[in-house]
């Protein structure tokens, strides 16, 4: 940690970035206890704004201060929170809490602070009539505190601590309207699925801590750690070299939190929460945590080709799967949820594909993934805010009740158009630059198959995004529009976020290419490589093709909108896609039938009947023996004497073998 005195003010007090949301949580929490909900909205928004400003100041001062530092990473502030093991044969292990500022964490701080502020402003409008808003804003600030803590983590233990806090705040926010059983079920599902992945993450941390004897990222990503991890370690059931297993376990944590393929079931249901929640948690910040974790551990992961391959495959498959499912969805928030899944699949597959098939790591892949995280955050948050406004007006989430909102909500319409263009990857908007980088890096790294999958998914993205756009804003109104209006508080953040969706790509591209270079292990050589020229052209063409097809099907003169909206009378494959390939039902079957009936019930029966039964049996047998002794006592003198005589003979025989 550099000597604190030399650092400028903001860096010296980086902890304020964490302190402000925590203060807002505590303040609002107490305020709500005393039944003054109306105050909590403004207070938390002001504090979020202050945090945004201070966060940007920190990032700016960090940018200037870290010019000369290797990898631009510095730890301006940290303290020892908990020490494990003072003695014994193992060196003492300490877990600290602190702030590590380096390109990816600075970028995330800026993104989280910005989006948190705008969502707070948006929530004032969205939650105005909701009586429980006094409970909403503290939870939102708690989430901001947890996310910033996760992003600034200096060691993997601190990351796990805030990882869990993020999980809990998302549980609380998804289940915010707890009187709705569906919301409660969704929140429980979200927490348990992420908790399932976190268990493996914790196991990974424990393995790393035992082998490397430290939690700090700087130590974990070092060459020494990698060699140490190559030694085989026994996991009780099997013996395996620690590196691949530990890397896979750590990635599993991200797998659950970023809702990758088998564990994606909780994200679509998480839409039960209020829309501002979805906009901040399930679009920009929490679901990106898995990608952030993989980026943070990139040097270690890149040393393990098998794990890189796993990341690439999982990313690509989820991107494709989610894109296909998104096409058939009727609920606009579920469309956006699946689109988020698909974009995160892109980011992960970019990281995974950075491993050049001949060995070595393509630097461009890493920076492309981070660039996409940056741009995606803004336009996806914007799309959710737009969806929120639309739902506010239409009364429910289904496409069937929307349409023709162009005239009633002009600003929202224009912002939505900007976001849709951005996400579809139409040049010159931000999505094009970041997504094109990813696909290009895939081709460069020698993964043509992944590259083509990227391109096709790009087309699908354009198709379902424009379907979403046309069915909401164009065509004739499918429900009464008398009171439709654009709330001031909700439209202002939408418009503000439209700007970065448009220009973030162009402005930030050079910055990302220069600053975001992974510090690889010594024996992993970085590959520079140039762009494959044909990729941007192909990507743009496919995107335009998707857009035109969507226009033709849903907005053009011959568009049969009624048929597009009714999901029942469609061919079997369409209904299967609409029901999300029944993955949820499979998971439900596994958990309910197998885990509850086949495992829990027999164990409970075993506990009550066998173990408990054994104890009761002992009790009963003793009582029975007591009864026998009483039966023996039939009160007659003869038996008493007989026993006495028998006793005498018994003692005589006993004395026989005792005495020589």
């Amino acid at each position, binding site marked *: 940690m550099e000597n604190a005195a030399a650092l400028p003010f903001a860096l010296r007090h980086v902890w304020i970035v964490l302190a402000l949301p925590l203060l807002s949580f505590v303040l609002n929490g107490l305020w709500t206890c005393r039944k003054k909900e109306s105050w909590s909205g403004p207070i938390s928004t002001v504090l979020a704004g202050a945090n945004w400003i201070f966060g940007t100041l920190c990032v700016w001062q960090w940018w200037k201060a870290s010019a000369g530092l290797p990898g631009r990473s510095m730890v301006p502030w940290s303290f020892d929170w908990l020490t494990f093991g003072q003695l014994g044969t193992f060196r003492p292990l300490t877990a600290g809490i602190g702030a590590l500022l380096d390109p990816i964490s600075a970028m995330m701080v800026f993104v989280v602070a910005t989006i948190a502020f705008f969502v707070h402003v948006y929530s004032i409008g969205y939650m105005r009539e909701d009586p429980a808003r006094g409970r909403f804003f503290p939870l939102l600030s708690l989430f901001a505190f947890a996310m910033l803590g996760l992003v600034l983590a200096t060691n993997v233990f601190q990351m796990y601590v805030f990882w869990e806090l993020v999980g809990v705040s998302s549980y609380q926010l998804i289940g915010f309207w707890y009187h709705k059983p569906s919301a409660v079920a969704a929140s429980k599902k979200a927490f348990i699925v992420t908790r399932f992945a976190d268990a493996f993450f914790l196991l990974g941390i424990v393995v790393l801590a035992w082998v490397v004897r430290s939690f700090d990222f700087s130590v974990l990503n070092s060459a020494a750690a990698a060699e140490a991890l190559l030694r085989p370690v026994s996991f009780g059931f099997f013996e395996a070299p620690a590196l691949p297993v530990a890397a896979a376990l750590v990635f599993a944590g991200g797998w659950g939190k970023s809702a990758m393929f088998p564990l994606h079931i909780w994200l679509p249901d998480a839409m039960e929460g209020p829309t501002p929640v979805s906009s901040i948690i399930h679009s920009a910040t929490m679901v990106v945590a898995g990608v952030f974790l993989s980026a943070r551990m990139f040097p270690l992961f890149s040393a393990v080709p098998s794990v890189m391959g796993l990341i690439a495959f999982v990313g690509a498959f989820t991107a494709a799967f989610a894109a296909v499912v998104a096409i058939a969805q009727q609920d606009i928030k579920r469309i956006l949820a699946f689109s988020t899944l698909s974009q995160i699949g892109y980011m992960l597959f970019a990281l995974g594909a950075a491993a050049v098939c001949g060995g070595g790591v393509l630097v461009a892949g890493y920076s492309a993934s981070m660039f996409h995280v940056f741009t995606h955050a803004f336009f996806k948050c914007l799309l959710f805010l737009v969806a929120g406004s639309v739902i506010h007006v239409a009364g429910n989430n289904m496409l069937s009740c929307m349409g023709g909102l162009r005239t009633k909500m002009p600003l929202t319409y224009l912002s939505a158009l900007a976001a849709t263009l951005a996400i579809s990857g139409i040049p010159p908007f931000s999505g094009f630059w970041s997504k094109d980088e990813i696909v290009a890096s895939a081709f460069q790294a020698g993964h043509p198959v992944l590259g083509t999958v990227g391109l096709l998914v790009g087309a699908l993205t354009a198709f379902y995004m424009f379907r979403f756009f046309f069915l909401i804003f164009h065509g004739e109104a499918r429900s009464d529009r008398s009171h439709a209006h654009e709330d001031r508080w909700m439209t202002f953040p939408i418009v503000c976020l439209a700007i970065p969706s448009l220009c973030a790509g162009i402005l930030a591209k050079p910055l990302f290419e220069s600053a975001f270079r992974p510090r690889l292990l010594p024996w992993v050589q970085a590959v520079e490589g140039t762009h494959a020229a044909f990729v941007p052209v192909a990507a743009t063409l496919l995107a335009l093709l998707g857009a035109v097809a969507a226009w033709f099907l849903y907005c053009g003169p011959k568009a049969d909108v009624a048929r597009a909206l009714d999901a029942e009378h469609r061919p079997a494959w369409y209904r299967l896609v609409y029901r999300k390939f029944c993955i949820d039902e499979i998971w439900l079957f596994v958990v309910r039938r197998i885990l509850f009936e086949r495992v829990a019930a027999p164990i409970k029966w075993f506990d009550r009947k066998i173990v408990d039964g054994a104890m009761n049996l002992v009790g009963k047998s003793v009582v029975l023996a007591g009864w026998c002794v*009483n039966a023996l*006592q*039939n*009160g*007659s*003198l*003869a038996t008493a*004497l*007989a026993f006495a*005589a028998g006793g005498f003979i018994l003692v005589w025989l006993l004395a026989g073998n005792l005495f020589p």
Partner: protein
Amino acid sequence: MTGFSLSAVLVLAALLFAVGLYGLLSRRNLIGMLLCVELMLNAANVNLVAFARFESGDPASGALLSVFSIAIAGAEMAVALAILVAMHRRRRTLDADELNELQG
């Protein structure tokens, strides 16, 4: 008077004791049982006297103990018979098997 050895007397006493014990267990009449107890006591006395006669270093104490035991037996039987009489006045029976009200 001579001619039988210590072990013969001991066997006799043991037999006497066994008969007394058997009688105590089998007889139903309480008086009979007390009789058998007397038999067992006297078997012990025979033992004492035999030991005093044949091999004891201090014959007087053996004989003394048997005399004492006879006296004590007397006292014991007096008390026992008094109790039997009192019980008989109430229960009108001397049969040991009928005395089974106290049980369980």
